[in-house]
């Protein structure tokens, strides 16, 4: 098999190199010196593995519980779609790859290797690119994680979710707290400094004290990256139905808010930087891939239901498109086999729409939107022009929720927790400023 030919040495070398590259890119961004406009020749790549062993009670993602996966066919289709979309996009350099799902750790390491090799062939996948795999804790994680490392994965995101077995059961997870800690330890041994864990908060009947206890335990054994996710009850999930029927208490938003506030304070104490609403890193261990989303960089999405945002090669004035692939795996595979890709919908993003995304995504990060970053997308209408004169913004500044200064526009520590309220003020201001701007002469036909 071709994929297995990927030399293990390369994979091991990748991890160190990727870590260096990550730090460099973040530093570049923070200085704003290397900005060359949103580059169309570079992109991140998301790979969706749609299968799970079992349905979690809170998850409404696009996932399927198959009787048996035809992995060879799936692998071949992922490879084909990666090649097709890379060709369509004209992307020459893939800076990060993220295997998400579903449960991509259920895929064979060979599938992961095959996709990475195809990417490297179709475009360039530098040795220092971040390659993340979402992995669920298991009772015997060691050898399998090592095999993923050999296949080219250099970062793990572990869906640990809770360190309380009762809660794990409530969430419909297949693992125990013990499995979680064991998997975490094994992952750290294999990918030192490159392991992230997810912890959920705001579960039905969850109390602040015990939850903080879990976080404290986790801080004692985790690596340099933690994500804290508040449970959101999604229609169509078992948990939603339980709460709806009253068989489970509704999560208390007040308690969830308290967990979030105290949790992030605890992480700050422990030297973690909250670089995004739900993401915390120390020693510069930010996720490059996710950073691309919040900076509105280009990304390609392959696999059933994957989303992408990129400008097709040769498109007039580099118009970016939002793309979504066919949801259902079998249909998606049929389409990939027939057309080379399973894109179901392509929606061109207008300039204003893109700016709205720059605003909404950028403010999720601690650096917010720098003037340079904004300028890459909109050189004519500055952040000052849009937000500088608004009385409503002034109120938010005075309240200490928002900052607008020589660096750019960003949320304060308090503001970050209520960003969705702030955006309801900011988005209309952007739309208004856009409508009132002096229209620039129509460019290039």
């Amino acid at each position, binding site marked *: 098999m071709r994929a297995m030919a990927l030399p293990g040495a390369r994979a091991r070398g990748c991890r160190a190199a990727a870590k260096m590259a990550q730090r460099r890119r973040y530093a570049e961004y923070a200085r704003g010196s290397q900005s060359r406009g949103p580059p169309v020749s570079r992109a991140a790549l*998301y790979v969706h593995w749609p299968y799970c062993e079992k349905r979690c009670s809170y998850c409404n993602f696009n996932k399927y519980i198959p009787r048996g996966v035809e992995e060879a066919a799936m692998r071949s289709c992922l490879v084909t779609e990666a090649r097709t979309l890379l060709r369509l996009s004209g992307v020459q350099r893939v800076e990060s790859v993220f295997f998400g799902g579903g449960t991509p750790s259920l895929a064979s390491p060979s599938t992961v290797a095959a996709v990475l090799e195809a990417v490297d062939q179709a475009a360039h996948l530098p040795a220092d690119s971040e390659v993340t795999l979402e992995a669920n804790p298991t009772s015997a994680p060691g050898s399998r994680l090592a095999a993923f490392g050999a296949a080219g994965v250099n970062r793990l995101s572990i869906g640990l979710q809770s360190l309380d077995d009762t809660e794990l059961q409530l969430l419909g997870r297949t693992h125990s707290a013990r499995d979680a800690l064991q998997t975490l330890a094994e992952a750290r041994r294999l990918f030192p400094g490159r392991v992230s864990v997810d912890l959920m908060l705001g579960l039905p009947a969850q109390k602040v004290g015990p939850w903080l206890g879990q976080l404290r335990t986790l801080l004692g054994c985790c690596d340099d990256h933690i994500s*804290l996710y508040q449970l959101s009850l999604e229609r169509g999930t078992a948990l939603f139905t339980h709460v709806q029927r009253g068989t489970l208490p509704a999560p208390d938003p007040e308690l969830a808010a308290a967990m979030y506030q105290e949790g992030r304070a605890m992480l700050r104490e422990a030297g973690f930087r909250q670089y995004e609403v739900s993401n915390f890193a120390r020693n510069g261990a930010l996720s490059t891939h996710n950073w691309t989303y919040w900076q509105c960089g280009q*990304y390609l*999405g392959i696999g059933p239901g994957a989303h992408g945002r990129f400008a097709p090669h040769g498109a007039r004035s580099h118009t970016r498109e939002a793309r979504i692939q066919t949801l259902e795996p079998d249909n998606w595979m049929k389409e990939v086999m027939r057309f080379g890709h399973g894109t179901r919908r392509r929606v061109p993003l207008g300039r204003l729409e893109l700016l709205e995304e720059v605003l*909404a995504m950028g403010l999720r990060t601690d650096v917010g939107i720098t003037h340079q970053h904004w300028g890459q997308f909109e050189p004519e209408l500055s952040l000052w022009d849009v937000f500088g004169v608004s009385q409503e913004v002034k109120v938010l500044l005075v309240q200490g929720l928002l900052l607008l200064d020589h660096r750019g526009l960003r949320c304060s520590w308090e503001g970050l927790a209520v960003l*969705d309220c702030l955006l309801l003020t900011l988005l209309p201001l952007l739309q208004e400023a856009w409508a009132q701007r002096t229209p620039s002469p129509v460019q290039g036909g």
Partner: protein
Amino acid sequence: MWTPVGRGRWHGRALTVWAAAAAHRGLLKPRPTPTREAAAKSRTLDRLYSSADRKEKIDLSRFSVENIRNFSIIAHVDHGKSTLADRLLELTGTIDKTKNNKQVLDKLQVERERGITVKAQTASLFYNCEGKQYLLNLIDTPGHVDFSYEVSRSLSACQGVLLVVDANEGIQAQTVANFFLAFEAQLSIIPVINKVDLKNADPERVEKQIEKVFDIPSDECIKISAKLGTNVERVLQAVIKRIPPPKVHRKNPLKALVFDSTFDQYRGVIANVALFDGVVSKGDKIVSAHTKKTYEVNEVGVLNPNEQPTHKLYAGQVGYLIAGMKDVTEAQIGDTLYLHKQPVEPLPGFKSAKPMVFAGMYPIDQSEYNNLKSAVEKLTINDSSVTVHRDSSLALGAGWRLGFLGLLHMEVFNQRLEQEYNASVILTTPTVPYKAVLSSAKLIKEYREKEITIINPAQFPDKSKVTEYLEPVVLGTIITPDEYTGKVMMLCQARRAVQKNMMYIDQNRVMLKYLFPLNEIVVDFYDSLKSLSSGYASFDYEDAGYQTAELVKMDILLNGNPVEELVTIVHKDKAHSVGKAVCERLKESLPRQLFEIAVQAAVGSKIIARETVKAYRKNVLAKCYGGDITRKMKLLKRQAEGKKKLRKIGNIEVPKDAFIKVLRTQCDK
């Protein structure tokens, strides 16, 4: 002489200019409702078969006054008034005997559903008794005291009534109210005990009640089953024997009372008239005593119950008249018609309608405004006792402030809007018209009167500028099985009512009379009474003027800023409980914002109730990666769009929903 009932109630007719314009538009754009369509169809059939071909136009001249009887049937809801009317119509051959004759005179869906009569109907019955042909005019009256102006107008065209009482339920509150209306109009009263066929019927007990409460000897009661037709013939004989013929003069110049009017989209206004003097026929020129307008009569006839043209109508008779009136305001209930150049003294008792319950009405969505407007116009064409004023609320948009004769009237109006016009509306909590006696010379000059009526709480004058405030009061009659007396009395006390009378109408039924402030019964009194008495207590009320009241204006504040839409006038003793309830409802429906919101009720500068809406501590989507962006942006933009429509009180954004939850009538909960 006939004595039209002029009881100085709050009724009569006041049509706004707006409603008048509506009627004109209605003429141009006919769109019959299902019920009217059916009525119109049967009318067409009548015209085809009865009036033209079947026989000559009826010659009413052969009915001398001595052979005419004008009467009404009055009863509590569901005691069988309409069923008795059906039987009388059948017995006299006015309608065929079929199984389908169910409440023939109740044409509206709401009437049949609720077992109440909203719109009075009239039917002329021809009946042979002891060799003599009689003309019996049955004037069906609305079945509720809300419509007592209409009842009183209908009664003023009568010399007697059939007072129908259910043999099982006995005298109920409305029986009492109806009895006094007839009694004060000095009409002959024939008690009819109905439903004697029922298993639990106890006609002897009801006879005793009638004797005790109304002072009518028990042998005067006729015991019938309208459903089975038992003894109905005796009722007709009693009508002839016990009710006197009208005292009128055919030779005198025409004097006709308009006691009802309806609007027909093809023929204009159809006025129901009772002739006190003289004769009227097609081609006559007539004048309205109220408007002084002159019309030429196009058609006269009797109602059986559909219009059947006749050559003439004579003194003492009851029928209809069409004279090119384009609008019901031209044929106001209580008005007098006379012949051109032969003016007569108008009949007494004409009053303008005084609505006693007001409510705001708004379309749920402003895009439905025009549809709702046309529905309201169409309804008011035939129900001119509803007053309509355009109104607009910052929160609810454009709408109307409607005045109704009473609560049932309001509910019926709303139900007809929904059923007949498929219009869904926001109806705000009803209020009553308060009054203030002004002391400030400046204000008196401004209003040009010393006593003003306050419909809009925003116009409530400050205490320093008034001598006293007045609130409308009603005399309520409650009849209840005595086991509930204690609970009923507690309820009445809680509603600031003062007991006026209490009597046992039989061994275990009590009749209570209380003087109620009207505003205490407009919202949920009836429901509370029904629920505490397991449905057995009945309630009715009549106007009892105004009384002095310690009224205050209550503001609702959001972080200190008053909310214009929520200003209310309340009695001082009720301010705290009302304020607390409003604050609680607001708290439940106000979305959190970036800061804490104090929801307060205040009288003057004094805060009487407070609730707090806590600030948002966290409001941000937890997961936002590549696949979430589209959905997230869509959601944010939709929210931002919605936010633009929110009403701002200070810096607080209040959704329309919150206003609706606070303002909407709570009785449907």
